[in-house]
């Protein structure tokens, strides 16, 4: 699966871009078919294992460095990292995908960021800023103050002018790959039309820099979680004095704990300490190793085999995103010697089987299908409970404020509640409905569709399965008039609050948009608007969770899909390795080398 290193668009189409499944583009996404045979492996209660992360807003105190060290931390040494792909962009303004963003933690900083407080517990804190931002004007104005002692690798101080420049340059013609939020909030949806960037001398008037340390953003509307948006790598800063436009992508200036000492494209990269980075200013990055040696071009099997063998220098080796290869899943899970070196983490994305509400109008039919949904069968087809966990809610459990519920018994009756479904269908407008199910024509999806079709036949629902070409699959399902009744769709939240989920997946209905169920309910829209206007983030999160359940209960616009599980290994001398529940990769922040 090519979710990790390609543009984030690929996240929307997990599995969409694979032709020959497992062996093609690596197994970064963790949907590894195959798995374990035999009855030897005991089923583990994975649900209990994966408590959702807690993410809250930190205080100014939380924003002070240094970072909270992991247990038994040791400083120094050279850590090796092996992965399949080099990073497509070194210019932070062009970064949107989780893997590249994860790498950028080492060389660039932003106004805010995620501080790990304990396992599974995170706080949004000020990174370059002294705190996570001050809101005024009902959420429209955000003010940040830069810390003292934050410097570029050149030794020059980081100023508010740099921050302003960073945002303004995103309007220029070349950075098209990054996130659009801040730009849109400052101007309009098609923001590149509104302003052409700072290179011809024009400034953006609603970013104000009253002094060298203060920067003020004035948005058109309230945005209670702008501090989450600023934590995205796409808004990490770029020096005004050293911005080389397109060429910056090859030769960036570091603001983080390391600088790139050597980079052989697609082969390797060596990082050394940035003498001008002061741990006392950084609450997020531990930066314990002295040096990093990154190597690229390793397929998941090669990575897995090296890490299993754990020989020589490979003891000091890990991989940011490479998952255990499908062929080794069974071996890795059943080998007690590897137990301490395994990392598992469910995906933070939301994947759904959407109903097209324009066509499947009877809620009883939708709910009957939900009750009968073959969750367990689909899980089996995809490799069993070792590769995915069952989801019952619209929001991913990693989203702040998430609350559990299981209205349709996806966990209680994972094989589908046929009796209940039949009873509901009998009361519906059409006891023998035909459902046109569009799916992405990949081998895995083909098999999944067979399971769905057979199951639905049992309750008298006739599934007309439409294989759709991988490349156009998203374009076709995201059309308003798509002629389909049900289809798979995914959405990866850009930061872990529902504010980048509900307003999108239940937002405006338009061609190419992400409201794929076409839910257009005035009550829901009003509630979304109300919550967006809340300035208290915790209150908002609670309200989102309540809305999640209410939508599922009263509208049932979708059936939640399985949540893929990452399975990673690391060398025996690597300490502090954790799969970050927000970015779904191993963060460099806590990595250290144990004493051998």
């Amino acid at each position, binding site marked *: 699966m090519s979710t990790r290193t390609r543009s984030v668009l690929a996240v929307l189409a997990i599995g969409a871009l694979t032709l020959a499944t497992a062996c093609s583009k690596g197994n970064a996404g963790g949907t590894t078919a195959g798995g374990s045979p035999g009855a030897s492996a005991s089923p583990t209660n994975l649900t209990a294992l994966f408590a959702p992360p807690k993410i809250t807003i930190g205080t100014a105190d939380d924003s002070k460095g240094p970072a909270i060290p992991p247990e038994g931390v040791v400083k120094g040494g050279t850590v090796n990292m092996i992965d399949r792909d080099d990073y497509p962009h070194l210019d932070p303004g062009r970064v949107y995908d989780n893997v590249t963003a994860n790498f950028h933690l080492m060389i660039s900083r932003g106004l805010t960021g995620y501080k790990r407080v304990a396992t599974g517990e995170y706080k949004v804190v000020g990174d370059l800023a002294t705190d996570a931002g001050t809101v005024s004007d009902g959420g429209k104005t955000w003010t940040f103050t830069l810390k003292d002692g934050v410097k570029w690798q050149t030794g020059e101080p980081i100023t508010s002018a740099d921050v302003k420049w960073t945002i303004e340059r995103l309007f220029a013609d070349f950075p098209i790959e990054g996130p659009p939020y801040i730009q849109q909030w400052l101007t309009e949806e098609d923001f590149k039309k509104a302003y052409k960037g700072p290179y011809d001398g024009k400034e953006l008037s609603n970013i104000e820099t009253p002094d060298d340390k203060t920067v003020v953003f004035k948005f058109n509307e309230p945005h209670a979680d702008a501090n989450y948006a600023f934590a995205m790598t796409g808004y990490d800063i770029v020096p005004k004095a050293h911005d080389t436009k397109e060429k910056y992508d090859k030769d960036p200036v570091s603001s983080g704990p390391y600088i790139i000492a050597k980079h052989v494209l697609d082969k390797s990269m060596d990082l050394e300490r940035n003498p001008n980075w002061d741990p006392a200013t950084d609450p997020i990055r531990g930066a314990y190793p002295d040096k990093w040696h990154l190597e690229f071009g390793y397929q998941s099997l090669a990575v897995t085999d090296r890490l299993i063998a754990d020989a020589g220098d490979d003891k000091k080796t890990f991989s940011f995103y490479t998952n255990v290869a499908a062929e080794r899943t069974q071996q890795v899970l059943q080998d007690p010697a590897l137990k301490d070196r395994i990392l598992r983490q469910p995906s933070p994305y939301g994947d759904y089987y959407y109903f097209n509400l324009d066509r499947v109008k009877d809620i009883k039919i939708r709910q009957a299908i939900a009750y009968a949904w073959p969750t367990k069968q689909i899980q089996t087809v995809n490799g069993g409970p070792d590769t995915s966990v069952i989801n019952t809610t619209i929001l991913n459990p990693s989203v702040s404020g998430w609350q559990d519920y299981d209205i349709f018994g996806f966990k209680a009756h994972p094989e589908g509640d046929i009796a209940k479904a039949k009873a509901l269908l009998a009361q519906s407008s059409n006891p023998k409905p035909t459902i046109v199910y569009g799916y992405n024509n990949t081998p895995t999806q083909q098999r999944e569709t067979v399971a769905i079709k057979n199951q639905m036949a049992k309750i008298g629902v006739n599934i007309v399965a439409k294989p759709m*070409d991988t490349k156009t699959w998203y374009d076709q399902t995201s059309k308003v008039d798509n002629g389909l009744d049900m289809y798979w769709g995914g959405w990866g939240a850009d930061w872990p609050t529902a504010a980048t989920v509900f307003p999108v997946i239940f937002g405006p209905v338009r061609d190419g948009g992400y409201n794929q169920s076409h839910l257009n309910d005035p009550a829901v829209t009003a509630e979304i608007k109300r919550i967006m206007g809340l300035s208290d983030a915790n209150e908002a999160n609670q309200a989102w969770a309540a809305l999640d359940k209410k939508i599922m209960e009263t509208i049932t616009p979708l059936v939640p899909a399985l949540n893929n599980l990452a399975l990673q290994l690391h060398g025996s001398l690597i300490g502090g390795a954790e799969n970050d529940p927000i970015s779904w990769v191993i963060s460099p922040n806590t990595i250290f080398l144990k004493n051998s």
Partner: protein
Amino acid sequence: MTSPLQATTSEHTSDAVDAAIAVSGAGQAPVGRSPGQLMWRRFRRDKTGVISAIIVLFFILVALAAPLISAVYGKDPYTTYGLDNPGLLNQYGFPILPNGGISSDFWFGIEPGLGRDVFTQLVYGIRTSLLLALAATVATTVIGVVIGIVIGYTGGRIDYFTGRAIDILLSFPSTLFIIAFMPVLENKFVAPDAETPTWLRAFALIFFLTFFGWPSLARLLRGNVLSLREREFVEAAKVTGASPGRIVFKELLPNLWTPILIQSTLLLPALVAAEAALSYLGVGMIEPVPDWGRMFQRGTEVYVDDITYLIFPGVALLIFIIAFNLLGDSIRDAFDPKIRR
């Protein structure tokens, strides 16, 4: 074959020798035998040829009788037995019984993941493979023969330009081309929001296989026609004022049946293999149509845990192709006894 077979000298002699043997074997006075009869006699004496013909016939029969076999056996290739009945697949989707879940109920085991019956999938898979390959073989042969004869006979510019076109087609990296442009064909025939029907995918496969298959056959026949064109009997026909149509159909074509038959017998297994390869790469028939190539694709995914699921289609395809290749060889030998293998 009604027209005189203008064989080369050596062929002629060996034909005569063969005829003599046939005669002496029968212990009767020499009787005239048509080349077709001679060929049939020679073929019948070739044990390998007869056995492979029986195997090929068996495959064809199985394909034809698939629904009957399925009914007697009591299972079909579509039901997901493993998902519907607990106790067949473990939680990881693999058969609980050893050897891919082979049992008295499931003779060839069950498919990992979906838990369908492997035996009926194989049986119905023959249908898919044979039907696609047969259609592509017929199309390739017809197009190859027509173009080969036309350019061979007319010569000149048509020959030159078609020859260059054939050169170019033969230089295309065809597998890659098919994978890349399969969607184009479907895109042209199906509205973006309409279903891609099974027949269209089948047609697309047949189309592409034919598109890259005909040039070599055409080239081969062109060569044959070129040498025939200079022969006395064609010259004679021309002199007597026969129309080009008559010359092509009455004089040339009868002499080309041998290479055509041999080539198309060898073409069929090659196309079965090509279709399986495309399926293996993910551009074959779509679920739930049973398809050998797709079984390979799944088989190579799960082989570490369930090798049985790979072995059945693998061995079946191997037998099928060997039998067809042997049959092709035997037909060739029967037609052209000079080349003994």
